[in-house]
């Protein structure tokens, strides 16, 4: 068990546990935010696991999740627009926390792998993760009012 897997275990236990609690209790606005954050956290855990197991091909999972996680959140934002319009979620604090953690993890992994094609792929995953998360959070809090015809 190396440091990467240890970091992945801690992130999975603390982060996914917190998002699971958030998605299980409370009002609907908190649940959608927790669902969004859970995909970003799982993406980070998958990146750390890929480095920990020393299998660069596992990064594909994180890439797919970085693409599909925001898509899932946008599905919720679109189809629950009526419910969320009455009580819009405002959770920029946790969003920026996860985005900062994502930037830190991707930077650490890039330093560990060194300049190569693998680190370029990691940077792409990080950019997708951060951009997708910010877009999904903005959609949840009603940033794209043109889409609200649900």
């Amino acid at each position: 068990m190396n440091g990467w897997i240890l970091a992945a275990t801690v992130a999975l236990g603390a982060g996914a546990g917190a998002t699971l609690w958030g998605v299980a209790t409370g009002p609907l606005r908190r649940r959608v935010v927790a669902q969004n954050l859970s995909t970003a956290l799982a993406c980070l855990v998958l990146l750390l696991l890929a480095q920990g197991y020393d299998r660069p091909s596992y990064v594909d999972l994180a890439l797919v999740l970085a693409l599909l996680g925001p898509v899932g959140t946008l599905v919720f934002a679109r189809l629950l627009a009526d419910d969320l319009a009455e009580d819009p979620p405002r959770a920029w604090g946790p969003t920026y926390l996860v985005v900062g953690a994502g930037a830190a993890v991707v930077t650490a992994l890039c330093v560990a792998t060194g300049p190569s094609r693998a680190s370029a792929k990691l940077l792409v995953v990080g950019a997708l993760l951060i951009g997708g998360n910010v877009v999904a959070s903005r959609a949840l809090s009603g940033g794209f009012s043109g889409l609200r015809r649900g």
Partner: protein
Amino acid sequence: MADAVIIVALLLVAAAATTAVLVRDPVRQALVLAVLGVLLAVLFTTLQAPDVGLSQLAVGSALTPLLLLLTVRKVRRRGRKEGPRR
């Protein structure tokens, strides 16, 4: 000690699945199911089955919630349309 991450992932999957059963509103159930799908993908990865995890990610994170929410919406609309007639 190397199995700690597997144990944590297993516990989280068990907790998420129990929550998905206990939550009664279908919309909120879809949210819990999305989290459960992502956690299952992480569990498959820790068990060295990334190909299974890949398909689980594709199905669990976006497709299942989409189908559930579309179904809920259709049922609600039909109920609203036929409600006053009854």
